[in-house]
């Protein structure tokens, strides 16, 4: 077995998202241990059975609301205990929210920021502390952000601003760890369009839409190399380069 396919000890925050589930399946295939978290206990139980049949060495469940960040360090400690260590923390939860509503309803704006950014800060920091306390090789903290954070645009800029915050947070963490010997790695996926239940309300089709398993394959590779920012799929790097480089007087005429 090659180094990149060796089993991992994985904590997944938001394990019920389509992309998290697809990534977990890939890691189960190589006999990894898991602690999976989410709000719906029945759905976590269903996911646990699936991962075990697919080859997971063990799967423990923690039912929790990730907005309750007070328990973050305790969740990490329990994960370390359940798996006898920890080398992989995946932060996969998020919501698109409703931009139009967020412009009139401060609670919706607050919800988008809380789920996608402010709670994620706590989980990323707690995950970073937990990984720093471990000593094994190939420790990695991976987050799912979005290309929406690369340039604000009218259709989703509250969501975009939260994802921008998450991306910068991870960039900073990667910068810190790069200066240390034997530190974990921080990797931030910048996702484009993904065909998941979260995007079912949007008309899909065309070459820009990726499947959850396409993203999972990118995430799996990113656990061993690349980063700190990984566009998923890769072509978004060039799309966003073009979008960021578009002068405002042109960009303002485009309905995006």
């Amino acid at each position, binding site marked *: 077995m090659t180094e990149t396919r060796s089993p991992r000890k994985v904590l997944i925050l938001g394990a019920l998202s389509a992309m998290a589930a697809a990534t977990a399946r890939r890691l189960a295939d190589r006999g990894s241990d898991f602690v999976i978290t989410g709000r719906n206990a029945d759905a976590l139980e269903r996911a646990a059975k*699936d991962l075990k049949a697919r080859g997971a060495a063990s799967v423990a469940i923690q039912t929790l609301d990730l907005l309750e960040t007070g328990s973050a360090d305790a969740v990490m400690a329990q994960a370390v205990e359940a798996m006898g260590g920890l080398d992989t923390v995946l932060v996969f939860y998020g919501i698109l929210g409703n931009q139009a509503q967020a412009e009139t309803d401060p609670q919706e704006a607050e919800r988008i920021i809380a789920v996608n950014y402010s709670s994620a800060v706590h989980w990323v920091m707690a995950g970073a502390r937990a990984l720093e306390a471990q000593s094994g090789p190939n420790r990695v903290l991976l987050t799912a952000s979005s290309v929406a954070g690369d340039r604000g645009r009218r259709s989703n800029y509250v969501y975009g601003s939260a994802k921008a915050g998450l991306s910068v947070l991870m960039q900073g963490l990667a910068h810190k760890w790069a200066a240390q010997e034997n530190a974990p790695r921080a990797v931030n996926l910048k996702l484009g369009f993904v065909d998941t239940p979260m995007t079912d309300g949007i008309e899909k089709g065309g070459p820009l839409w990726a499947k959850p398993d396409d993203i999972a394959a990118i995430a799996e590779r990113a656990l061993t190399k690349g980063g700190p920012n990984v566009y998923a799929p890769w072509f978004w790097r060039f799309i966003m380069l073009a979008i960021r480089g578009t002068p405002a007087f042109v960009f303002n005429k485009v309905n995006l």
Partner: protein
Amino acid sequence: MSQAFRSQTAKRSWGRVVEAHHDVAKPESPTEAVAILSEVANRKMSALPIGLGRSYGDSNLNPDGALIETTRLDHYIGFDPKTGVLRAEAGVSLNDLLRVVVPHGWFLPTTPGTRYVTLGGAIANDVHGKNHHIAGSFGSHVLRFTLARTDKGVLDVDPETPGDLFAATIGGLGLTGLILDVDLQLVPIRSAFLDQHVEPLRNVDAFFEIAEARAADYEHTVAWIDCTARGDRLGQGVFTSGNWAASGGLTPHDAKSGPGLPVDAPGFALNRLTLRAFNMTYRRSQLLKPRNSRVHYAGFFHPLDAIRDWNRLYGSRGFYQYQSVIPSETAREATREMLDLIARSGQGSFLAVLKTLGDRPSPGLMSFPMRGVTLALDFANAGSKTTALLADLDAIVKTAGGRLYPAKDGRMPADIFQQGYPEWERVEALRDPALSSAFWRRVTS
């Protein structure tokens, strides 16, 4: 329109002849699937459960009604590598399943020519494979399933369940309820490879001789036929037999599917000349190889899965597939007649497969396989010219006492269906009243 259903204007089946509007729901869990069925009942909708949509004609379409796609019911519930009993949700594909079980030394009891079929679809069409003469059809290996209905709730169904519901669901075309999960008995394998024997077939008479001889020594047999050959060479082709190899490792197929066709092929891509060239090239390339070789199961069982969206080869008008089975007693004469008719029509097929089926009975009331010979062919849709040829083939099948495969069909007349499947009324009696399909309305009217 509720949240569960989304409008899809141009839904097609694998043959791509019919394009119709559907409201499509994709339940994310068995619980949600049950809730969607309640909504179907409350709103008096017409719905049809479907899997990966690989049926060719209209048995997986319900125009202007609803479809419930089960592809997100893709979780395993349990797999025991000691006994080879697998319990999984009905939307798990055979493609995914083999990647999970092959490394443990298990395989599907029988596999159709594509892995892109769900467990639910494999039951609903009671699929069969190259080992039918030994293993029977898929339904023979199903231990139990959970069935959700709009009128009777969620039922645990096994062969002992009173009232025919097990038998009506095997080959029941998804009409007896939505299958939530399945218990399947897998078969042990020692490697992921098969020892393959390939030999030329001079004509259709040779097929019958070789098929009988090889069935005794080989678990898997199939013939590919060059449909353009006539006269003394009518039915020429290659005969392939195989047995599981004793060694070679338990590596499953690659998760990545092959390159796809980005666009529809132009209409002229498949004419008589190109078909002939393709068939001959295929035959030559097979015969140039050593007669005995060791091949991976993916290449042996699922050669077309290497080309994603191969159905687009037939251009934007789509194609028909025609698959018949003729009972042994009349098979030789009827097969010759059909091949002759096809060769003379000049509408030769891209793929022509000929195989003997065995006598292991299926538990299903409307199972397609029976002891005899099955012929499967594709026909590019050239309008009335094509449907007229298929009607002529129908006449041969009807006279010979055969039947056509609903999974492949988008046009068979009601009388052919009802003669071929005399138990259809028992399935109709057990049909979930809210479930229907274009196929079912046509063949029962």
